[in-house]
């Protein structure tokens, strides 16, 4: 997983849990919340979150092709790990 991206996405509620919206990514891809917003103030406002994503080229394509998110930056980092 040498491709990294920083994205802006929205919080959603899935089975009662706050979960950032992320399109399906290839197996082995990971993301983490970069903002650390207090859990009490996620929804309904501001309802945006910045995630850092570790994925591959197909994952970057999935991010780029999803109109629901904004890709802030993409870079390649050999041997990249979170």
């Amino acid at each position: 997983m040498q491709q990294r991206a920083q994205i802006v996405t929205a919080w959603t509620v899935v089975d009662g849990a706050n979960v950032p919206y992320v399109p399906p990514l290839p197996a082995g891809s990971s993301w983490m919340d970069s903002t650390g917003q207090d859990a009490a103030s996620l929804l309904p406002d501001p309802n945006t979150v910045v995630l850092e994503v570790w994925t591959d080229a197909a994952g970057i394509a999935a991010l780029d092709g999803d109109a629901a998110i904004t890709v802030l930056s993409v870079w390649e980092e050999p041997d990249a790990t979170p």
Partner: protein
Amino acid sequence: MDLVLLDGPKRRRRPRIGPFRFGTDAAAPLPSPYTEPAARGSLAIVDTGFHASISSGAFQWATSVGAADPAAYSTTTFARKTGRALLARMQHLAAGNPSRSYVAWDTDAAAFPNEGVRFDAGTLRAKVGADEPVCGALSEGLYDTGYVQRSSGGFHLIRAVGESVWQLYYVSIGQTNTPMYVGVVVPTSNAKGFVDNLRVVDLPGVWRDDDGPATQVLSGARSAGDTYTHTADALIERIITTRPSAGSIVERFREQDDTNHWSIQVNSAGDLSLVETVAGAPTTRGSSAAVIVNGNRVMVIADDVVMRVYSSNVLRYTYSSATNFKAATAGRLASLGTGGAVSTIKAWPRRVSLPGWA
């Protein structure tokens, strides 16, 4: 900050090899085998580029030919033994070539070693067979490092020189090689390294136990509702024996109460998630897609506000804003989902002492 004091008697034990203190300057090429009057044993030096010298009280090189060149290996092997520790002082300097080196156990005294500590251009890694999980950033400076053998795997330790306690930065399983050499090994070309006070000692006390300074060990198959305690800053492992067919395995840690806690969750797809629950409302802070298969080991390392989540010796993600419940010390296997199974939950303190080697 949790500190678990494990000091036993303060008497110094004679190293199995060393201590190599590199107190007398010597230019490349160094003699091989290399010996010191006060040190037990000798080191075989590999240095085709004549880059390794002894200066500033250390075995060091400013550049390198390639993998394992330069290198220094013990000329004798050591049987695997629980509590057998390889200790050394290493330096990370940002200027010039990247600081990259292993101080590790090695089966063949050639190429890459098998188990131990790796400095990797400002990144601290554990060496676990072919895996090298990232364990955090290194700032410039001198560090004492250690790798203590278990019957399978070992304890990876570090502290900045001047600190009184050690940080247990990773606990590994699965490596059972024996006998092994000890080695100082450069991993790549154009890298520098600095190693001092190299020695092998047999630690007493809790280190003779395979789980070392573990604060709790729940062996065998676990049941939903099982509880354990951990230090607030801790390393916690569990084996995901079987993924659930529905729902999720949920294991809480830093549990303040039933509605305020952190948890690791594994669902039927093998997704591995870190969830913060505040006043009963869960928030997913990190997740990896389809990384868990049956039998995988999941490790969480919680240190103040930083949480690192590993599976199969890969750091999956790091969450750096874990301010809630950071003093909580309760753990609970809250759910196995449908058909899920978990075994062998173990917790270690993040900070420990090494008896006789303060």
